């Protein structure tokens, strides 16, 4: 900045005026920061209960300009213990550990004094040969370098040869230390932001030292800051943090296929295939995000993508492997990572960020065809408010403690977050005049019902990992997340009375009607009807199956001559029997599952028609 301003002084009067403004600004900010640098450190890390505050700041996006973000990350990632007294010793231990790793793999055959020339010659293929190792290492280094030199091409920082070399070193050492996973494309883009953050904090310290800002601190605090942000150990500290991130993310990079039977997880009752399939850990994770989160919170969007056969793996592999690194600008990405890291070492927030990102562009997606959708997902549109995505993600996971964020608009595409409708109350207007699909109608619905939807009367989203546990599909990462939040999910679901049930108890006299969409109903054992899930029905529900059903249903269009008592009895009987059927079926592995589930879904329509919570014209 200084060089910039001195340059412009030579150029012209106007620019020199501008430059002097910059200098003035710098002086002012210097004055301000002088009192803040040490204060910021103390306020951030030295107060009682600082950890809770630090986590809260992360999810609120308040670390955006923090000059100690790398220390915060180290705490989140368990690279530093909670007790700050131990930080310096822990840091030193880690640095020594990395130094030892570096020494271990520093093989230079030219410096080798081994006189066994069977081994010590460049053509030796022996495992123990230094030369053989040397050439293998070079191959690995070439692979890594090929990716490192094209990391964040638009950011100068990553084009510097010093930084590139450092990244290569870290990735190389990680690969050698973890021979099972070695180096995989994408790791370099997880490493890069960490290096950037650690370096930024170190530079901030240097700057503070130049301005004598540390003098106001007591000696131990000063030593602590200087040790934690010691420039000498950029590579060491970054390695340790990167290793921690990889610890969680590693399964997402695994190519190992896990074989499992689709219907045993009960992904999709109307699946077209019941063949056993194999999936990578990441593949399963992505499928669960679709089936267990997206489908619940926005079934319209889910079926839109489902019908177009846009599987989450297509775009989701990159989204998750890079922790959304290509979907946001670097500064916004760091804010997203603040939240992911602070939320817990399992990074389980990713699942909800993933869903929130889809919901934020739902209107865009709903009004797009296959290619357009693919384009939006592969080249995620720039979203002006990253915080909104975080807030929405937190809300999706825990609507009771995190209120729904207020909607906003992106560019020409109105972004309206359907109030994550587990239920949608259809106003009479819609009944009379079925509007052709598109987002406008759903927007209308949600606008009318934002109040009712905002109240947290829907069950907490079932964490996708719980489903996994019950089916023995748990990875380490998932295990930790389960232990972390044992209270979430089902417990809330039980506390809350399903809206649809409440409505039916009140009878059908209310002017608005809750529609329980039978086809969208997940018929798995994990979320039977008791979970209160009744997703929104839009007038133009995309399922072809559904239309067929409507036609079949029309033949039953006769006025009923049952009285209220008999009706109630029939409904109750049907509900109970459907429940039993569903639960039993979910446990069985039947050959014709689809057919049976379809039949159950039809029974549900019949029940809802009897109840009066569904009308024939609504099915269309």
């Amino acid at each position, binding site marked *: 900045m200084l060089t910039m301003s001195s340059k412009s002084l030579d150029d012209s009067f106007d620019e020199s005026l501008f430059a002097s403004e910059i200098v003035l600004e710098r002086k002012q900010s210097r004055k301000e920061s002088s009192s803040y640098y040490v204060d910021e450190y103390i306020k951030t890390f030295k107060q009682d209960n600082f950890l809770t505050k630090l986590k809260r700041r992360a999810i609120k996006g308040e670390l955006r300009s923090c000059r100690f973000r790398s220390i915060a990350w180290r705490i989140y990632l368990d690279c530093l213990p909670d007790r700050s007294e131990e930080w310096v010793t822990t840091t030193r231990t880690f640095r020594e550990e990395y130094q030892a790793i570096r020494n271990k793999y520093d093989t230079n055959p030219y410096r080798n004094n081994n006189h066994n020339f069977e081994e010590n010659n460049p053509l030796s293929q022996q495992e123990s040969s230094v030369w053989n190792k040397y050439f293998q290492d070079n191959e690995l280094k070439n*692979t890594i370098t*090929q*990716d490192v*030199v*094209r*990391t*964040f*091409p638009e950011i100068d920082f990553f084009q510097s040869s010093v930084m590139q070399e450092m990244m290569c070193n870290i990735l190389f050492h990680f690969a050698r230390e973890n021979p099972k996973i070695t180096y*995989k*494309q*994408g790791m*370099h*883009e997880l490493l890069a932001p960490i290096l950037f953050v650690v370096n930024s904090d170190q530079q901030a310290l240097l700057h503070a030292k130049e301005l004598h800002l540390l003098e106001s601190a007591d000696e131990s605090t000063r030593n602590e800051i200087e040790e934690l942000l010691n420039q000498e150990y950029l590579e060491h500290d970054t390695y340790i943090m990167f290793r921690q991130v990889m610890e969680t993310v590693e399964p997402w990079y695994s*190519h190992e*296929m896990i074989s499992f039977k*689709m219907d045993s997880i009960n*992904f*999709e009752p109307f*699946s*077209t*295939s*019941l*063949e056993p*399939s*194999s*999936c*990578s850990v*990441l*593949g399963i994770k992505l499928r669960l995000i679709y089936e267990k989160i997206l489908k619940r919170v926005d079934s319209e969007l889910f079926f839109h993508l*489902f019908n*177009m*056969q846009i*599987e989450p*793996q*297509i*775009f989701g*592999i*990159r989204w998750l*492997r*890079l922790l959304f690194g*290509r979907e946001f600008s670097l500064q916004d990405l760091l804010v997203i990572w603040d939240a992911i890291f602070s939320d817990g070492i399992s990074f389980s927030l990713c699942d909800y960020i993933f869903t929130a990102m889809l919901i934020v562009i739902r209107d865009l997606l709903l009004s797009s*065809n*296959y*290619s357009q959708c*693919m*384009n939006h997902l*592969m080249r995620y549109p720039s979203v002006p408010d990253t915080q909104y995505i975080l807030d929405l993600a937190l809300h999706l996971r825990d609507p009771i403690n995190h209120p729904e964020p207020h909607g906003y608009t992106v560019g020409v595409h109105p972004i309206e977050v359907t109030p994550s409708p587990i239920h949608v109350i259809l106003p009479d207007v819609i009944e009379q005049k079925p509007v052709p699909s598109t987002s406008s109608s759903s927007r209308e619905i949600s606008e009318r019902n934002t109040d009712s939807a905002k109240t947290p009367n829907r069950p907490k989203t079932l964490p996708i990992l719980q489903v996994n546990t019950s089916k023995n599909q748990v990875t380490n990462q998932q295990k930790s997340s389960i232990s972390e939040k044992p209270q979430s999910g089902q417990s809330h679901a039980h506390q809350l009375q399903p809206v649809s049930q409440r409505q039916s108890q009140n009878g059908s006299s209310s002017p608005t009607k809750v529609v329980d969409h039978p086809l969208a109903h997940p018929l798995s054992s994990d979320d039977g009807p008791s979970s209160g899930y009744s997703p929104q029905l839009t007038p133009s529900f995309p399922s072809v199956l559904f239309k067929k059903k409507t036609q079949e249903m029309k033949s039953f269009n006769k006025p009923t001559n049952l009285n209220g008592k008999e009706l109630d009895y029939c409904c109750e009987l049907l509900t109970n029997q459907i429940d039993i059927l569903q639960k039993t079926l979910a446990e069985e592995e039947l050959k014709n599952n689809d057919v049976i589930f379809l039949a159950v879904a039809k029974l549900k329509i019949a029940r809802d028609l009897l109840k009066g919570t569904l009308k024939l014209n609504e099915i269309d």
Partner: protein
Amino acid sequence: MEDYKYLFKIVLIGNAGVGKTCLVRRFAQGVFPNVQGATIGVDFMIKSLMVNDVKVKLQIWDTAGQERFRSITQSYYRSAHCLILVYDVFSQCSFDSLPQWCRDIDQYAGAAIAGNGRNVLKVLVGNKCDKDREVPLHIAEQFAHNNNFDLFMETSALEAENVEKLFREIAEILVSRNQESNGGTMSRSITSNSFNQSSKPSNCFNCFSN
């Protein structure tokens, strides 16, 4: 309804860094990025062109070099009309990997494609031919011939050499194949907006792997 007559799915494979993404971007967007970030998972691009007054839409799936077939979802290649295997003429190593890629194609794509009752168009491309070469042209030609490639071409994404031509020829072959198989009458069976519709119903969401 979109206004194209045919939609063909093309999948690019080959070692990391041979220039698959640059090739696609040169063709689809007319640009050559100075530095192109590594592809993670898969990328997707669409480009339409006219072949004999017929509009053809090419759906191009650009895969990550390191992924190889095992983690590419089956449905990518199951319904692919064309596989382009790319190597770097400047890198002997990328050429030496070709046999392994061919085995992968046979193992993973072969059966699936045979099951669909049609042959996938196999194309070999030597990219970066603007550079000094390590792989002689005749060696590559021989390799293409021996391994039953339908088409072989050397390209330069940097200098836009043969890039347009490559995709145009692929489109032409696919169009003529499709016309033949339909006895001269063009059908839309292959041109559905959703690429899986022409294949068997089980070939969708649930058998999707990675």
